[in-house]
C-alpha cells in the first residue's frame, strides 16, 4: 500500500467519523462498524496467508476468543475498553502462537485441515462451555467504557472503531514495507531460500501466526464496542471463509487488496441478506467467477506502483 493510498484511507475514515454519526441512520453506522471489524480481521488473515503464505483456517476462533475475552473482562473484571481490547488480542495471540507451532511441522492441505479442526473445536468450546460463554444462549456484551463513559450506540462507537482501525491499517502497511514483511514474503516464496539468506524461518512463521491471531482478537475487541450480543453460531467456519474470500477476492498478498476486499465483500454479503433465497447462489457464483477471471484479486491493481 502506497503512502498516498494510506493517506486517502486516513482522510476517508476521519471524514466518515465526523460525518456519518450526524448524517446516517443507526443501521448504516452499524454496517460501517461491522465493515471496519472485517477490515481488521482481513488484515490479520492477510499477515498469515498473504504475507507469510501459511494456510490458516482458524481465524473465526481467534476472533471469538477476542470477543469473549474483551466482553468478559469488561463484565467480570470491569476493565475499561483500552485494556479489554488488548486483553482479547493477547489471549488470541497466545492461542495463535500455539497453532503456529503446528505450522512448523506441516504445510499446505495438512496445515489447512489442522487449523480448520482447531477452529471447529473452539466453536464447540464456545457452544458448550456454558458457565463462561453462555453456551447456546449466547452472551450479552456490556457497553464498553472509555474514560468512565459507557458507549451506548453504534454512532458513539464509530469514531473509536475507525480510530483503532486506522492505526492497525497503518501498522500493517508499515509491516508490509519493513524488513519483517520482506522476511514473511521470503518464507512464503521459499523456506529454503529464506533460511539461506539468514532468515529464522521458525521464528518468522510463529510471529506471523501470533500477529495474525492478535489482530483477529483485536477485531473481536472492536466488535464488543458496538455490539450487545454474541452467539457461537457466528464464530464458525462460515466466518473464516467469509474473511478468507475477502482477502482472496481482494487480492492475496496486497494490503490494499485485503482492505478493499473486506469493504466490498462485507457490503456484498450484507446486501445479499435482502435476497435470502439467492444469497448463497450469488455469493458462490461471485467466488467462482473471480477465481476464473480475476485470480489475482480485484483490488490488486489499485495502489500498486
Amino acid at each position: 500500500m502506497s503512502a498516498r493510498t494510506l493517506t486517502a484511507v486516513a482522510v476517508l475514515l476521519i471524514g466518515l467519523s465526523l460525518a456519518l454519526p450526524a448524517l446516517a441512520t443507526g443501521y448504516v453506522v452499524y454496517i460501517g462498524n461491522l465493515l471496519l471489524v472485517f477490515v481488521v480481521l482481513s488484515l490479520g488473515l492477510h499477515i498469515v496467508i498473504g504475507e507469510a503464505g501459511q494456510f490458516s483456517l482458524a481465524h473465526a476462533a481467534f476472533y471469538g476468543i477476542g470477543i469473549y475475552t474483551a466482553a468478559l473482562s469488561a463484565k467480570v473484571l470491569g476493565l475499561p475498553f483500552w485494556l479489554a481490547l488488548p486483553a482479547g488480542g493477547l489471549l488470541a495471540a497466545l492461542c495463535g502462537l500455539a497453532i503456529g507451532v503446528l505450522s512448523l511441522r506441516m504445510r499446505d492441505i495438512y496445515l489447512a485441515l489442522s487449523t480448520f479442526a482447531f477452529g471447529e473445536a473452539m466453536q464447540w468450546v464456545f457452544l458448550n462451555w456454558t458457565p463462561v460463554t453462555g453456551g447456546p444462549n449466547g452472551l450479552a456484551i456490556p457497553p464498553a467504557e472509555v474514560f468512565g463513559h459507557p458507549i451506548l450506540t453504534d454512532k458513539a462507537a464509530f469514531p473509536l472503531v475507525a480510530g483503532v482501525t486506522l492505526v492497525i491499517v497503518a501498522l500493517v502497511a508499515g509491516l508490509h514495507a519493513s524488513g519483517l514483511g520482506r522476511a514473511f514474503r521470503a518464507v512464503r516464496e521459499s523456506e529454503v531460500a529464506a533460511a539461506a539468506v539468514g532468515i529464522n524461518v521458525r521464528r518468522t512463521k510463529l510471529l506471523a501466526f501470533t500477529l495474525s491471531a492478535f489482530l483477529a482478537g483485536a477485531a473481536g475487541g472492536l466488535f464488543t464496542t458496538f455490539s450487545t450480543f454474541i452467539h457461537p453460531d457466528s464464530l464458525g467456519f462460515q466466518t473464516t471463509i467469509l474473511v478468507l474470500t475477502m482477502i482472496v477476492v481482494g487480492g492475496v498478498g496486497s494490503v490494499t487488496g485485503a482492505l478493499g476486499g473486506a469493504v466490498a465483500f462485507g457490503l456484498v454479503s450484507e446486501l445479499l441478506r435482502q435476497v435470502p433465497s439467492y444469497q448463497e447462489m450469488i455469493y458462490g457464483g461471485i467466488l467462482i467467477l473471480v477465481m476464473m477471471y480475476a485470480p489475482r484479486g480485484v483490488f490488486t491493481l489499485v495502489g500498486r506502483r
Partner: protein
Amino acid sequence: MDSEIVFLFLQQGIASGLVTGSVYALLALALVIVFRTTDVANFAEGEFYMAAAYLAFFLIALVGLPIWIAAPAMVVAIAAAAGLFQRVVLRRVAAARGVSVNLVIATLGLSYVLKGFVRATGFGDTPRSFPSVVPEGSITLGHASLSYLDLAILGAALAVMAAFFAIFNLTRTGRAMRAVGMNRRAAQLVGIHLGRTERLVWIFAGGISAIAAILIAPKLLMTAEMGGVVTLAFAAAIVGGFASLPGAVIGGFIIGIAENLVGLFVSTRAITVAPFVIIMLVLIFKPQGLFGGRLRVRKV
C-alpha cells in the same frame, strides 16, 4: 460401568461404526482420488453428496421413477456435473493461477451454489426422509443388532470400493490416474491426456459421492446442510494419510467406529467435536497419517 455393558457397547459401537464408516470411507475415497491426481482439496464434496440425495428424492418421490431407474440416472447426472465443473471451472482457474487457495475457493464457491440452489427449490427448508427399498427388520450378531438396511449399506459400499480398486489398479485408465498423481509431466510424456484424466477423476469422485448418498440417505433426514458430514470424510482421509486409497477406507471405518464409541461411552454432545480432536491428534503426532508413507519432498 460393569464389564458386561462395556462389552455390549463395544460390540454395538463397532457394528454400527462399520456401517456409518463405510459411507465416510466412500466420501473419503472421493476426496483422496481428487487430491492425489488434481491437487485440489474438494470442499464441495459434501454438496455433491447432498445434491445427489436431493436429486434422487426428486426423481423418486416427485417424478415417480422406480428406484432402479432413478438411482443410476442420478449417479450418472452427478458424475457428469462433477466432470463439467472440472472442465469449465477448475481447468480455467488452474490455468489462470494454479495456486491451491484459488482452487479451494472455487470449490467453496460451488458448494455455496449447490446449497443455495437446493434451498431455492424449497425442498431444503424442512428435513425430509428418503424412501427405503430394503425391508424392515434386523439381525443380531453377538450382542450387536443391525438392520437389513445397515447390512445393505455395508455390502454395497464394500462392493463399490472393490470395483473402484479394481479400476484404479488393473485398468489402463486407472493406471493413467495414478501416473498423473505421481508426476504430471512424466505422465504427459508417456502419452497420457492430462485434461481427460483429471476430468475422469472428478467424474469418478462425483459418482462415488452419489452412490454414498443413495446408500445412507434412507438412514437420515435430508437437509441442505447434510453435506457437513464431509468433515468426517476429511477426518477419515487424514487418518489414512490423505494420499492413500486403502488408508482412506480404513480411516473411514476408524472414524465411524470412534464416533459411535464416543457416543456410547462419553456423551452424544462429544460426538460433534470428536472428528476435530482426531484430526488434530493425528496431524500433530503423525502428520503423514497412518498410511501416508514418507512426506513428499517438493521442489524448492
